């Protein structure tokens, strides 16, 4: 009885992920005593902020059985617009609107292709990825935007009742996301579309509108992440956002989202992001050159998927 309930507890995604985080932290502690210091843990969390926002959107997209690999491009383009407006000396209040609006517009482009054009999400976003990459190069004209004034600093440096404001953003967005999934018809529609699109359509769910919503919402979150990115680094390069799509998909899949759609686990996604960033940080501290980051993240994605598939098959459920 008790053994059974313990197994069920460990089987829960949040618990197994938290254990994985602790285990990884223990291993990295062995390689570098610096790893478990407050300073380094803060760095890991700070590095997670943008990815947390983007992965929230990706979780919604995966829930509709979609995928978006153009998010890096959206991040880059939004960041360029934000960078330019900072350079031009626009007031903070306007710039704060600009980032999310730019992101939302670009997200809606994906949504439009997928819903109205009925282009499969992988094709639409892969195509847009190419278009956006080219656009980033052309907009930047081969040079970086760098040495920006710290107009945006209050966005990331301030605190509300002692809580860093970035943590407030993340928690607020996740809370809204959770509320939508749990309590709003829209959330049910999103999950229904991913579970069985045809059945959802026949049951009268607004399939197109739900899909449009998830891509628009992801665009909004990516635009907001771009704002925080520019505020923190104060520069925009052609490589901005290059690996973000992979990291976000890995984090969401780690968190228990299935690429086949129909499920979302937001707490899992949060822990997934922390695990991804923790591993990336730990490997660097353990002396692995950062060039290996892609290899490690890509292999991690495959490993999780294979383990998931094995677990589900042993439970005689539908394969991944």
């Amino acid at each position, binding site marked *: 009885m008790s053994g059974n309930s313990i197994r069920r507890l460990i089987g829960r995604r949040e618990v197994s992920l938290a254990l994985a985080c602790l285990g990884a932290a223990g291993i990295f502690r062995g390689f570098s005593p610096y790893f478990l210091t407050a300073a380094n843990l803060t760095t890991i969390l700070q590095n997670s902020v943008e990815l947390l926002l983007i992965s929230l959107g990706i979780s919604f997209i995966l829930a509709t059985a979609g995928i978006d690999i153009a998010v890096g491009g959206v991040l880059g383009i939004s960041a360029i617009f934000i960078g330019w407006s900072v350079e031009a000396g626009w007031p903070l209040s306007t710039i704060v609107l600009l980032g999310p609006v730019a992101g939302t517009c670009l997200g809606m482009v994906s949504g439009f292709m997928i819903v109205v054009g*009925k282009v499969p999400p992988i094709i639409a976003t892969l195509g847009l990825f190419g278009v956006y*990459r080219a656009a980033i190069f052309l907009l930047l004209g081969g040079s970086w935007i760098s040495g920006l004034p710290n107009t945006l600093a209050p966005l990331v440096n301030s605190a509300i009742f002692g809580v860093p404001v970035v943590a407030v953003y993340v928690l607020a967005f996740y809370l809204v996301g959770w509320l939508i999934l749990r309590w709003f018809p829209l959330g049910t529609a999103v999950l229904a579309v991913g579970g069985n699109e045809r059945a959802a359509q026949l049951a009268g769910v607004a399939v197109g509108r739900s899909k449009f919503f998830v891509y628009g919402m992801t665009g909004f979150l990516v635009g907001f992440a771009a704002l925080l990115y520019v505020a923190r680094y104060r520069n925009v390069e052609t490589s901005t956002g290059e690996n973000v799509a992979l990291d976000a998909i890995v984090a969401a899949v780690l968190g228990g989202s299935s690429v086949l759609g129909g499920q979302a686990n937001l707490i899992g996604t949060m822990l997934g992001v922390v695990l991804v960033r923790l591993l990336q940080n730990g490997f660097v501290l353990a002396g692995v050159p950062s060039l290996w980051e892609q*290899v490690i993240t890509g292999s991690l994605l495959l490993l999780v998927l294979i383990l998931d598939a094995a677990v589900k098959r042993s439970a005689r459920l539908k394969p991944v």
Partner: protein
Amino acid sequence: MTLMMAPPKKMRLAGLVALWIFALAFFAVRSPGFVSLANFSSILQFSTLLALVTFGQTLVILGGGGGVDLSVGGIVSLSGLSIAFGVKEGLDPYIASLSGIAFGGLLGLVNGLLVTKFRLLPLIATLGTFYAYNGLSVALTDGAPIAGLPTFFGTLGQGSVAGIPLHTVFIVLPAFLILEFVLWQTPVGRWIYGIGGNERACRLVGLPVDLIRLGIYVHSGVMAALAGLVADSWLLSARPNIGENLELLSLTAALLGGTSIFGGTGGLAGSLVAVLFFTSFQAGLQMLNVNAIWQLGLVGFFLIFSVLIDRFIRGGEST
């Protein structure tokens, strides 16, 4: 609908050829040097890499089940590096090349096993290997090319007969002819179309669906490795990023060539014309001094455009 008197497939190929000729005419008018033997051979020279990778990609898509191989570029880079490494270590060039090609097949086998054995969606499985393979080729070399291959190694990549590059004659054309023969005249080819068209029916009549798919992914890896070999020989060095963007390009060429993203319909002839169209386009833009990055954007646009066209041609047929 009355407009579609000819079968859609023929219409589509004719349309693509027309598009290609239009592009050729456009560049011929805009830049006088475009119509020349030298430019003709440089178009063929550039087309080999994309053509080989696209052949592999086309079969993967034809085989259905959401088939797509995003890792082709990584395989081109990795197997190219392995060949150059072997040659530099003093291995016989033929043995180094053959083992490099086998290595490409092995990388394809990994994709195939992930898809058939572990039942992962091809797009997510090959997205994982895309990052793993591309990352490996950069990480193993620190991003620096393996340069200084002996000049005799360049025969395949640099030699030509009457302006036609050797690799076009000895690799691309034979590969195309053999694959066309296999696709249209042998059971294996018919099976590939079959499992792409109706997987369930094929399983019910007892076809080894998983084995065929596994073979398709291995084949894609081998074709990518051949591309890596040609690149090595052409440049006399192996670059860790030589395969960059080839997944986007090959996917676009295959889809623009009329292969349906859902599998089962399409073929290599369209893919080949699409590849020639792309490379002519690339050469033309280069002559007009247009920034190469435009090409990436245009390809992305073509990718989406070709699926939209596909939908338009197939009309009301739903997925």
